[in-house]
């Protein structure tokens, strides 16, 4: 586990380095978010199953993912197009807007049943413990399932998630996805 956290820290410093000197402007981010809302909602609560909830993610995570879509290291039918022409400043603005909302998770199950390989970074209720990890609370199970399989196959790359997913069977992946999908999520939009 210490190795995992060290790796996480390393990733954080690398990703942060690229845009560390850019400060996001929430007002500008709110305007830009018009092009995100059909799928993600203005508050970052997903409007359709294929989209993740992005309201209240860490700015760090949002910046890293948008930059990865932009440079092609993460690929998606829609996000690749949307991110292609974003500037560093626009990415920072969007991250500031969506990162500023407040997610609240409601875990109905016994936290002791949470998937043990996930909780150190994602928490038992799917609210992140470290800023490099996304919140998973209330995501569609097929979204989480799809991402874990992409980490396993190498289609989506991450130093921590690659090795974690490599050890998982389809059934284990689905069980983890079902756990976090069952958590209730509310996102309070912060202007």
């Amino acid at each position, binding site marked *: 586990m210490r190795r995992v956290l060290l790796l996480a820290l390393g990733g954080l410093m690398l990703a942060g380095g690229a845009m560390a000197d850019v400060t996001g402007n929430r007002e500008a981010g709110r305007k830009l978010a018009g*092009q995100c809302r*059909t*799928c993600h909602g203005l508050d970052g609560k997903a*409007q*359709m*199953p*294929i989209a993740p909830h992005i309201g209240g993610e860490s700015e760090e995570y949002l910046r890293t993912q948008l930059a990865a879509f932009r440079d092609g290291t993460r*690929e*998606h*039918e*829609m996000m*690749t*197009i*949307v991110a*292609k022409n974003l500037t560093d400043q626009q990415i920072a603005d969007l991250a500031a807007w969506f990162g500023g909302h407040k997610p609240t998770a409601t875990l109905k199950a016994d936290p002791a049943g949470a998937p043990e390989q996930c909780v150190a970074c994602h928490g038992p209720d799917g609210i992140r413990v470290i800023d490099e990890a996304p919140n998973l609370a209330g995501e*569609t*199970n*097929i*979204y989480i*399932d*799809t991402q874990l*399989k992409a980490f396993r*196959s190498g*289609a989506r790359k991450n130093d921590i998630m690659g090795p974690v997913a490599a050890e998982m069977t*389809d*059934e284990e992946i*689905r069980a983890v996805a079902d756990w976090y999908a069952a958590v209730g999520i509310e996102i309070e939009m912060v202007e």
Partner: protein
Amino acid sequence: MNSRTIVAALFLGTCLATPLAAQDNMDKLTSMQRTDATFTTIAQDDERAAALKEILPHLKVPDGFAVSLYAVVPDARSMAVAPQGTVTFVGTRKDKVWSVVDRDRNRVADEVKDFAPSVTFDLPNGPCFSPDGFLYIAERNRVLVFPAAEFFFEGPDPAVGVVVEKGKLIPAEEESFNHTARVCRVGPDGKLYISLGQPHNIPPVDKHEMYAETGIGGIIRMKNDGTEREVFTRGIRNSVGHDFNPANGDLWFTDNQVDGMGDDLPPGELNRQTKAGQHFGFPWVNGAVEIPDYKDVPRPEGVEFIAPAAEMQAHAADLGMRFYTGKSFPEKYHGGIFSAQHGSWNRTTPVGARVMFTPVDAEGNAGAPEVFAEGWLDSETGEYRGRPMDIAFLPDGSMLVSDDFAGAIWRIARQAE
């Protein structure tokens, strides 16, 4: 598959499955054992239903028609009305297939509950029926068959067979979430026709040959036991709706075009296929529009690209479609195509979220598409009230429109005189 094959398959399943540890309930179900699965039931008379009814005054249908709320169905996607018309099976892009039941035939659903809760579904978007009542469900990467689903849906453990095993529809590493909503139809030849969207905006050049062989970016067909699979339709980007013209057996399908080329390019497509193996041009072209990424990639030899039969507004996202075979709509609609526009996702000014009608004449040619129903898009704010996804018809000839945004099935019927 006739019923004898199914019984034989089930019996075989029993012999094979017994010594193995159950991975999921498929082992139990194929050997006719019970599981402890329970139903999820969706309330039809709560605040959600009331909120949906408030959308109705915004919806616009032609004179002489009326629109109503048929059912509250979360994430409602492609639909299959069972032969008796009692149950409509509705796929989702999540993990449920819904049974929408109208026992008393008052054209409002009495009950909505999940179908086969014992089965762990994975993106079961596409249900379709054979004329003799076998329900096929095309998932992300598996195809299942449920014999007599219209009768067995009452219990949590219906009989089930596997048509295409998990991981055999497409290579697992090509699984995505977005362009992965399968649609199926049983053709006039009794074979299964299943669309396979390609999982990119534009496929990487080094993958297009493998995709062409697999049928990714196409429609495949196979016998109803999964054998004799072949690529029937080539050169599609991401089709999420197809149907056969009952008059002559032509296959028609919608396609969703490339994003990132501007608000008005390329136009949406309604395509007509008259022969097996025809190529519709993607990824070299979308209709008359060339895709720059494939400018220098050699086109398949000796292949003519078939142009769309009708063009639709760019980015309106034409999805589910069906020929009108009912009688209760006026004559002008008979034999034509109704299709659902899901609505755009990144166009500067949103468009779509409508039901379109395209006439088809006696020679099987398309006329000009027209708007049949609209109002799911709030043109002032650009926000969606709902997003039509698929079209189906009840035995009385009235139309069902699924809506995965509002979580509803709307019904459009000829108004009583």
